[in-house]
């Protein structure tokens, strides 16, 4: 019987003793799904123009006939983990079947390899060192002919990979303890050398750990063991170049009590075990009865250990202990499970054109068979399996986990292009509840924020020198570590607690295996101003608590919080705060000051109906999102923040002239108000915006909110980058209310702007050198304008510049593409832009109630290819006309992202012909008249 795949398994960042590499599924994983593949006709997510409806994965009984037809000896090519750097003395390989022999080749010569045991990423020494300009491939062999070679990975100069200099090494597992014999260091140049040094304060430091030929994240044995109060640093080297020295860490006293290790994934015949609740640096011993079968230094909290001999028969009890400075933990035990309990492995949703399948949390030591349309297309191990062909839209893919001779009884099955689980439905994690820091309860903490705000509302009874660090929490059951999301309310009556209003979000996020907390900042509420910085500081001090808890053995959250996957969400004033906190995280960071020891590296920020411009801080003249993924959601019927202030923050995020470190998105919800995102606020504390009948229900509004927010954090924090295809309009979900119109924007970090209209007042000048624009036929207006109108003439309400174009009969805008830009086009699956039909108080060129349409055409050589109708991809609705009882007409012309896959133009022509792209034409030929706002014409993923 097939059962729906309920959510997904927890996302774990596991650190192994040796050969550590970035892991798929959790923080920092790459993958080939980001932004979605070329899916042919996709579609905007506005109502009536939904993207491809997603059906999600299904757990099915393992199709024995498929397994029976598996070809003996068939192996996927392994996967080489980029980047490869010149002078590197190691190469990290993943995706192979455990036990295979790995052969690494460069320039036709064998340069390294060996027995592959760690398919999640094993680092092999190579000789001679890598040479810039060459490339590297790898094969795997297991009792038969070798696999096809992997994709060739070029060897790069490290200056090209790290243009701002070698990264600063970082200790992710802290604190470092006296007697510790292992740790882990990340932010390393792959293939380089790592040195960990320690010594007394002010005295000489000696090397206590060294690895030649590292992965980007590397565990390292420490000898002699760490000494109390010694200062520890790490530094990397590639060629003769040294990285900056890491932050200095002082060795701490070991905890008085060590927790008992916890087992995961004990299956008979297994050759690896996963242990959690380990204290950084302890010595671990794994026993079967009196016999030691594994162990070693624990570089982190959750660690894979090889065991030998393999795990015995089901029912056997295995024990593990950890020891540090003579303190021994109690034994943790686990019972070996039979083969019949081998779980299915889950896939990240595959998209058409994918040549790899990413797997979620495969069992260490297991391999995975991949079938597509009943054809065996992959056999590998670890989190990424290379396929022998690209996947096709609509075909069925099955993943089967295999451990030695044991074949999982159930398998994961998805349809290519439709495999995303609905983020609006509950996930697969069991949810637990907690509230911490409630004033008056034992252990409740307070913090002093007087340096940031000291003018609370008179109804606030707590002094700013001792405000509570209080939050409501929902968290998943399990070892973790789990991503952490803090949700922060905005301004409201301080006498009515706002934080319970997001419990619906907490429950939902926790069911998707994220720790979620709603933070109490009621003491900053009321008739107040100038408190924005304090809102961010309170949030950062909550993060300090969480860091302390996950680093404190014995705490219920010890080891369960993924500090590399922190997200924040905020509503209204809290919504602006989510853009302040990541900036304060660095500009206010001071490791020497416990109140300002931040540096959390917040990864994702989600703003719900935010305000903008309320921060008054000379250190931060204007908030510009540069380091975190960013999403903003707002409603047409917002009667409080009625001018969609977050649109400005969206515009500023990831400035067009600079490389982007993340993605950003925007959602404009017809009928949504300000308060219904919070179940406490409801509708009573804002003006009712007309037409009142168009306001949507609170249930619909919150269903939209939790669907988008969950997808955002799954993508930003948990490694499910394929959810970006939802933000970009290529995917849609059943949990969304069908009757509610949504306008969206999505900006992928990988983009080249042809026209962003920021550089020149002349609309003829493109943004990319050599791009020129020309109107053809009568266009009036045809001008670059500031999209900042808070009303007439164009009702754009933004903080950017763009093009306004109007027509009364056929006309077009021709964008000339220079050859060097054309040569880059095929590297990006989409031609994209933002566009909207303008609101007109007295409609003349646009018709209320009628979607706008026009065509886009490209020219290759001197041949115009068939036009693509915009209406075939997205709807461009007439703006919702709204009236605020006090502020008057608040109608907004909100732009819609339009993404056109090249395949829509090319048909059967080869993609390579895009190298001859000479013109892009926006042809206003589908309606007699129109007035549209256009911005950010680009090639993008």
């Amino acid at each position: 019987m097939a059962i729906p795949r309920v959510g997904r398994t927890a996302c774990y960042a596991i650190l192994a003793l040796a050969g550590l590499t970035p892991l798929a599924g959790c923080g920092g994983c790459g993958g080939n799904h980001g932004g979605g593949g070329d899916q042919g006709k996709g579609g905007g997510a506005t109502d009536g123009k939904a993207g491809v409806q997603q059906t999600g994965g299904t757990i099915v009984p393992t199709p024995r006939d498929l397994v029976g037809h598996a070809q003996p000896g068939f192996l996927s090519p392994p996967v080489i983990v980029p980047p490869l750097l010149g002078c590197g003395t190691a190469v990290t390989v993943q995706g192979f079947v455990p036990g295979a022999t790995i052969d690494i080749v460069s320039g036709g010569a064998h340069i390294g390899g060996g027995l592959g045991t760690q398919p999640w990423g094993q680092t092999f020494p190579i000789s001679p060192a890598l040479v810039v300009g060459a490339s590297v491939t790898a094969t795997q062999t297991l009792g038969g002919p070798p696999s096809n070679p992997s994709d060739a990975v070029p060897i790069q100069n490290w200056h090209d990979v790290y243009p701002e200099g070698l990264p600063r090494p970082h200790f992710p597992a802290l604190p470092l303890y006296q007697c510790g014999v292992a740790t882990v260091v990340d932010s390393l140049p792959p293939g380089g050398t790592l040195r960990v040094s320690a010594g007394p304060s002010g005295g000489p430091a000696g090397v206590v750990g060294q690895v030649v030929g590292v992965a980007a994240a590397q565990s390292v044995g420490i000898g002699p063991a760490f000494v109390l109060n010694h200062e520890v640093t790490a530094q990397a080297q590639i060629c003769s170049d040294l990285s900056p020295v890491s932050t200095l860490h002082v060795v701490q006293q070991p905890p008085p009590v060590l927790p008992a290790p916890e087992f995961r994934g004990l299956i008979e015949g297994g050759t690896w075990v996963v242990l959690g609740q380990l204290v950084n640096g302890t010595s671990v011993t794994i026993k079967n009865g009196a016999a030691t079968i594994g162990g070693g230094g624990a570089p982190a909290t959750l660690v894979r250990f090889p065991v030998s001999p393999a795990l015995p028969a089901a029912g056997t009890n295995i024990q593990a202990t950890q020891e540090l400075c003579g303190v021994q933990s109690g034994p943790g035990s686990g019972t070996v499970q039979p083969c019949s309990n081998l779980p299915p492995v889950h896939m990240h949703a595959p998209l058409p054109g994918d040549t790899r399948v990413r797997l979620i949390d495969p069992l260490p030591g297991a391999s995975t068979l991949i079938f597509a349309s009943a054809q065996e297309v992959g056999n590998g191990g670890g989190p990424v399996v290379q396929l022998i062909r690209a996947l096709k839209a609509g075909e069925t893919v099955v993943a089967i986990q295999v451990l030695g001779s044991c074949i999982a009884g159930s398998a994961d099955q998805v349809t290519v292009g439709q495999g995303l689980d609905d983020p609006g439905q509950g996930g697969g994690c069991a949810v637990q509840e907690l509230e911490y820091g409630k004033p008056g309860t034992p252990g409740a903490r307070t913090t002093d924020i007087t340096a940031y705000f000291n003018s609370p509302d008179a109804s606030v009874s707590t002094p700013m020198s001792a405000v509570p660090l209080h939050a409501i929490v929902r968290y998943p059951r399990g070892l973790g570590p789990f991503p952490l999301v803090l949700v922060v309310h905005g301004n409201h009556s301080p006498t009515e607690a706002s934080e319970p209003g997001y419990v619906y979000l907490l429950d939902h996020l926790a069911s998707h295996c994220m720790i979620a907390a709603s933070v109490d900042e009621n003491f900053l509420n009321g008739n107040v101003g100038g408190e924005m910085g304090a809102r961010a500081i309170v949030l950062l001090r909550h993060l300090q608590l969480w860091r302390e808890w996950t680093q404190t053995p014995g705490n219920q959250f010890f080891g369960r919080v993924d500090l590399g996957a922190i997200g924040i969400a905020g509503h209204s004033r809290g919504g602006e705060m989510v853009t302040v906190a990541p900036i304060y995280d660095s500009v206010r960071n001071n490791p020497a000051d416990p109140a300002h020891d931040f540096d959390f590296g917040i990864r994702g920020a989600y703003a719900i109906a935010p305000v903008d411009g309320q921060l008054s801080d000379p250190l931060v003249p204007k908030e510009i999102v540069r380091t975190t993924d960013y999403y903003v959601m707002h409603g047409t019927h917002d009667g409080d923040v009625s001018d969609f202030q977050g649109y400005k923050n969206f515009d500023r995020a990831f400035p067009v002239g600079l490389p982007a470190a993340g993605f950003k998105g925007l959602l404009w919800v017809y009928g949504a108000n300000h308060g219904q995102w919070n179940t406490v606020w409801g509708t009573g504390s804002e003006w009712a915006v007309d037409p009142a009948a168009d306001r949507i229900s609170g249930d619909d509004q919150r269903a939209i909110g939790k669907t988008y927010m969950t997808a955002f954090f799954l993508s930003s924090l948990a490694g499910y980058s394929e959810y970006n295809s939802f933000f970009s309009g290529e995917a849609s979900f059943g949990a969304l209310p069908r009757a509610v119109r949504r306008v969206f924007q999505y900006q992928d970090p990988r983009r080249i702007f042809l026209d962003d209209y920021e550089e020149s007042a002349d609309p003829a000048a493109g943004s990319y050198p050599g791009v020129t624009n020309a109107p053809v036929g009568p266009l009036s207006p045809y001008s670059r304008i500031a999209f900042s109108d808070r009303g007439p003439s164009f009702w754009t309400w933004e903080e950017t510049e763009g093009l306004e174009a109007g027509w009364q009969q056929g006309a077009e805008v021709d964008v000339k593409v220079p050859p060097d830009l054309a040569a880059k086009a095929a590297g990006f699956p989409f031609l994209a832009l933002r566009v909207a039909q303008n609101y007109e108080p007295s409609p003349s060129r646009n018709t209320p109630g009628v979607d706008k349409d026009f065509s886009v055409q490209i020219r290759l050589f001197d041949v115009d290819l068939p036009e693509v109708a915009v209406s075939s991809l997205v709807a461009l609705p007439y703006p919702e006309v709204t009236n605020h009882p006090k502020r008057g007409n608040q109608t907004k012309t909100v732009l819609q992202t339009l993404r056109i896959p090249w395949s829509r133009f090319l048909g059967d022509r080869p993609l390579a012909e895009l190298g001859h792209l000479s013109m892009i034409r926006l042809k206003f030929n589908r309606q007699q008249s129109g007035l549209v706002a256009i911005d950010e014409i680009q090639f993008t993923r």
Partner: protein
Amino acid sequence: MRRSSRWFPILAAAASLLPAACRANPSPAGSSGAAPRGETLELKGYEVIHLQLAEPLHRLDAAGRPATVSEAYLVRLEVGKPKGWDELVRFYVGDYQVPEYGGWERGIYFKIYDPGLLTRLAGGELRYRIGGGELHGFGKRLEVPPLERIPRRREADLFPRRPASR
């Protein structure tokens, strides 16, 4: 509540003459000078109090140096609040934007820690801006008596608070 402090009532009749008053006394740059449309606020009065802080405050002084202060000047405006909570109302004295303020039963208050600043602000027009809207004048200037004549109050009496937890 106001007995021991100096209070500047604004007569109802005077409020109705606000546009004329503003025209008679040209406002600083940016002030609309006209009766605001839509959401407006009315200033019924204000007072200035020499405040003994409930606890010493560590902050940066005007030169950016860490300082500990135990006194401040409190300016309380008797002024309404727009419906809704999150749109920010910015208050100004002349061209000086009040950096932070809090609410009290009949309006908002703000503190000035530097006597020199209070002196400089004296005579400045009291103004406000709701969200990104226009800058409006209340039609009243901040009158500050000689500092030594400003009535003294204890913050603990005006704003009784207790720590959230030990």
